């Protein structure tokens, strides 16, 4: 009887350890690692980009005036 109980307990422990919920939980630290590294490197590249300058209404009018002149 005793060996059967020990075997059942060990099987139970192994099943719990191998269950997807436990595996998924421990992998929560891994999920997103690649994305976060890529996001960090993307931030570095974006720092070097310049948005097209927004032209104010006055600047656009001045440019039109120059063209007309």
């Amino acid at each position, binding site marked *: 009887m005793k060996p059967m109980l020990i075997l059942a307990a060990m099987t139970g422990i192994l099943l719990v350890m191998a269950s997807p919920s*436990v595996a*998924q*939980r*421990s*992998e*929560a*630290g*891994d*999920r*997103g*690692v*690649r*994305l*976060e*590294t*890529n*996001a*960090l*490197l*993307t931030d*570095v*590249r*974006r*720092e*070097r*980009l*310049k*948005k*097209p300058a*927004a032209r104010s209404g006055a600047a656009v009018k001045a440019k039109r005036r120059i063209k007309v002149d």
Partner: protein
Amino acid sequence: MRKLNALAGAVGLLGMQPAWAGDEATQPLPQRPAWGAFVSFSPTYSNNALLSRSDRRRDIYANPDVMLRLDGKLSSDISYRLYGRSSFNAFAEETFASETFALVGARLTKTLWDWRTSVSFEHRFEYSGVYRDLLFIADDLMISTTRDYSWGPFTVSPTAQFGYRFADVAEAERYRLDLLLPIEAKLMSRWSIVATPLLEAYWFTGGLNDGRQDIVYSASLGLRYSIASNMSLTTSANYEWRTSNVPLRHYRDFEIGPRLDLAF
């Protein structure tokens, strides 16, 4: 877009009120807040899609990254940024490796002794697959500092970032330190060589990962072509090596691919 700018002005002015309360007469008028949209896309080859120690599988993945942000100034030397961002990896074959994040964040930046120093907060949703199953929700609190050094055609931007992640899954909670050294060498008017040595250190604090320590060393080398001032194409190769006090978490990964970045 004009309507968005008007809204940005209203939001920005609301945010500026505390800064003005002290002495309106002596404060210079803050600049108008400005909207910006940033889009990146990269098809990338990886020789270890699962980031596994032993189960190495090669695959190609798409990695779009979209960010909408509002930049403004609270005072002459403090700027703020409010942003929303989302990105995913979609693998062609190894779909288990696909993942997504979506976040909203806020950042305050001040220049201290020529170093642009920021504190930021991000509320993040992490999914497996492409927006498939929600894995956890996290709040990241971070401090970072960076500056540029230029010598002739070379620009080096040492950057350090440190933060803590609070999450609704204990296993995702950790401290993180990033040390980067982005280097750019201009070749001709539009061409540059770019390289980024990077060290990431993680100290996990919760659940099954309590006590786990990971260090990721990586280096990328690439060629950048500036299509326009707001658009660039960078083809780079990246080698990454993770060590951990949990041997199962060791891996090496090599990735290569072009990346297109646009700003609007």
